[in-house]
């Protein structure tokens, strides 16, 4: 069946090329049937990519080792779920997934918006198609998932750290995020090409951007949890280049989601918004390049490959063409209004944008610095954790504070007296929290204390906003308090969904500050029966067992855990020895306290033949708030993403008023 897969991808390449050329000609000459034909080609490209994907999935499930890709990424002993995850576990499969999602999103976005933004859509199709041509060319000519060989008796297996349930969701979500950012990019370029720089491209892509941003955010948190429970070094985020590669487009998209509100409300920042979309998409390409080229030394770069130069060339073309188009259309992008005051909501959103972008660029510099230093000096100089932590504090803490200030400042301008009134309660809560924490000893970490104080400020503003809004809804005629609350959210999902997302960022900040600024660590080499103590816990090393699992030998040390004389049960930590892959992984022991959000985290660093174990133990206060933040973030995103019937009606009305049928 490899022939079918190869043929399907060649068909995709042909269809994408046709959609690019025919779409561009149709848009330029104003040919209706040719434009429809190009749109059909994009949909057909999705279908043929789906066929190719089905062929690869079938080969994986059959353990057909005549497919080089299947033999390299799986083995007979690999559980079925991980065999499926091998689809995106290797370079060729993940590029195919990129193409599948890209053509699917392209076809869906075009069909959903063609009724009310058709003059824009005819230019969007060739942009989508151009990106699809690149990726289909890669999987046809450079990194085919359908290369065949004489089938070996068994496959090489999967990297042990990838044999984790999180790998079923983390990479696909990141890909949904990366590829999802193609939609706003294609519409932005379509708007520039067509000269239709009105609000429609923003409306058409708002939910796509939110979806991509949500997928990237949740995907990163799942990846952080995977690193925490599986990689076994005691943390959840290492500023690894590939982790940063997902964070950067997320930061750029976050900036866009805020600044787009300024364009919608005030008609400002049109150039800025287009540039942010271009940046977010280029960074998503850069992220895929980092993950898959093997150019950086990372736990995520499982392959060294030849796709790097192709990606760099494509990123260069994307940036050059996009910036050229922006320069060409500058006269159309001039804003009809100007910033009236530095104390206004749009100004606060602008400060937020500058900080997000500064953080994003600082991270980008940290990622590319080793590559540049190697190119210039012949030696890769890696910027360590201190570099990133410094910029996280410098830009992240003011961002946290602005999250509480921005939404409560009036549009256009606000007086200082009004600000003092608006923020008096929040400021009081924040100062009280900071003082209390200082008395309780949290002053050992100034950034941690500041993060907690700012978090209290933001929390207070969010609670006050919900309380005041609900009261106003009740006064406006809601029959009950729950009714007023739900009506408040339903009438402005973006605003109040946004507050829920802000609440998740507060939880994240508290979790990060607690687990990094106030954590404890202890190390000890223990023989059976010996014990160690850390942050009020006492751990007694009891037994060491060895057991055979489906694809690995598991060695586990059992520790009895006590605190304040109370027996808290036992904890297992050890290692897995993977026979086929010939690799060993750390399997950490974690005991979570649901009341305090604290984790006791045990690594069996070294296990000696005589049964002595070298343990490294962490106590991480509040770390579980990071994972709770993920759930709250998803909830807030869903509220914001939920279709708004009144907005749909308003758009339908608007299109009807200019005599265009609204079929959306």
């Amino acid at each position: 069946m490899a022939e079918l897969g190869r043929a399907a991808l060649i068909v995709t390449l042909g269809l994408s090329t046709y959609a690019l050329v025919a779409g561009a000609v149709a848009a330029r000459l104003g040919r209706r049937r040719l434009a429809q034909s190009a749109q059909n080609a994009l949909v057909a490209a999705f279908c043929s990519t789906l066929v190719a994907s089905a062929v690869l999935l079938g080969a994986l499930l059959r353990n057909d080792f005549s497919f080089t890709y299947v033999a390299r990424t799986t083995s007979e002993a690999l559980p079925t779920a991980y065999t499926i995850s091998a689809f995106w576990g290797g370079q060729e499969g993940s590029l195919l997934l990129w193409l599948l999602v890209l053509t699917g999103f392209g076809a869906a976005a075009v069909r959903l918006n063609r009724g009310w933004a058709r003059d824009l859509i005819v230019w969007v199709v060739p942009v989508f198609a151009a990106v699809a041509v690149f990726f289909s060319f890669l999987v046809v000519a450079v990194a085919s998932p359908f290369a065949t060989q004489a089938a070996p008796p068994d496959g090489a297996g999967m990297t042990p750290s990838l044999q984790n349930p999180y790998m079923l969701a983390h990479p696909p979500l990141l890909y949904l995020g990366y590829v999802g950012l193609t939609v706003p990019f294609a519409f932005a370029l379509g708007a520039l090409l067509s000269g239709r720089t009105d609000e429609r491209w923003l409306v058409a892509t708002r939910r796509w951007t939110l979806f991509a941003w949500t997928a990237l955010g949740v995907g990163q948190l799942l990846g952080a949890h995977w690193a925490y429970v599986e990689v076994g070094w005691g943390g959840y985020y290492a500023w690894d280049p590939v982790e940063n590669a997902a964070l950067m487009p997320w930061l750029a998209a976050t900036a866009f989601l805020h600044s787009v509100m300024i364009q919608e409300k005030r008609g400002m920042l049109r150039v800025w918004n287009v540039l942010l979309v271009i940046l977010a998409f280029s960074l998503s390409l850069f992220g895929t390049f980092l993950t898959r080229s093997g150019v950086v030394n990372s736990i995520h770069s499982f392959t060294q490959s030849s796709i790097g130069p192709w990606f760099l060339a494509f990123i260069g073309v994307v940036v050059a063409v996009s910036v050229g188009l922006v320069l060409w259309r500058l006269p159309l992008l001039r804003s009809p209004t100007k910033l009236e005051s530095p104390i206004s909501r749009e100004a606060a959103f602008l400060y937020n944008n500058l900080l997000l972008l500064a953080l994003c660029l600082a991270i980008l510099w940290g990622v590319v610095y080793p590559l540049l230093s190697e190119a210039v000096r012949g030696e890769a100089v890696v910027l360590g954790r201190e570099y990133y932590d410094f910029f996280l504090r410098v830009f992240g803490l003011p961002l946290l504070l602005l999250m509480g200030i921005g939404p409560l400042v009036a549009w256009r301008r606000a007086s200082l007296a009004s600000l003092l009134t608006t923020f008096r309660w929040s400021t009081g809560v924040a100062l009280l929290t900071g003082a209390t924490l200082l008395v309780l000893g949290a002053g050992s970490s100034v950034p941690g204390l500041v993060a907690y104080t700012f978090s209290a400020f933001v929390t207070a503003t969010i609670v006050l906003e919900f309380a005041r809004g609900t009261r106003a809804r009740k006064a406006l005629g809601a029959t009950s308090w729950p009714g007023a609350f739900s009506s408040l959210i339903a009438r402005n999902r973006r605003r109040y969904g946004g507050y829920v997302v802000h609440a998740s960022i507060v939880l994240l900040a508290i979790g990060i500050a607690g687990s990094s600024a106030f954590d404890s660590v202890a190390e000890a080499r223990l023989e059976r029966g010996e014990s160690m103590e850390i942050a009020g816990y006492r751990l007694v090393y009891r037994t060491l067992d060895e057991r055979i699992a489906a694809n690995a030998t598991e060695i586990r040390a059992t520790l009895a855990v006590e605190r304040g004389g109370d027996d808290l049960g036992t904890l297992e930590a050890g290692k897995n020895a993977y026979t086929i892959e010939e690799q060993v992984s750390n399997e950490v022991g974690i005991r979570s306290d649901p009341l305090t959000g604290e984790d006791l985290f045990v690594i069996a660093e070294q296990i000696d033949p005589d049964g002595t174990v070298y343990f490294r133990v962490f106590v991480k206060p509040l770390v579980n708030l990071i994972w709770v933040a993920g759930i709250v973030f998803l909830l807030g995103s869903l509220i914001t993403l939920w279709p708004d019937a009144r907005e749909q009606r308003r758009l339908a009305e608007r299109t009807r008023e200019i005599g265009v049928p609204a079929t959306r």
Partner: protein
Amino acid sequence: MTLALLLAALLAIGCVVAVALPFLREPDPESDDLAELDESERRRLDLLEARDRVLASLRELEFDHRTGAVSDEDYRALVGPLRRDAANALQALEREGSTTTAEAPKNEERPVGKRIS
């Protein structure tokens, strides 16, 4: 091998048919022009966007004032210009509407073509 190639051929034929469908359905259409917004429609769209933007701002200001997020002093300073902007937007739309009506006979001669749906 044969089955794979047969399936590949079927896939290719299906895709070609899908791509050719607009031409197969309408081999000889009355018009093949894309129906794009003309200059007056685009101007009207800009005005409608401006109107909706200012009306949404007014609604938000009213609600923020009601919740107490915007003080009385700020409300008084902001509501006047916003109401003026709203009135200007509505007047501009009316003017544009009357201009469009006056231009209507000229527009009727414009080849509209079938809209993509």
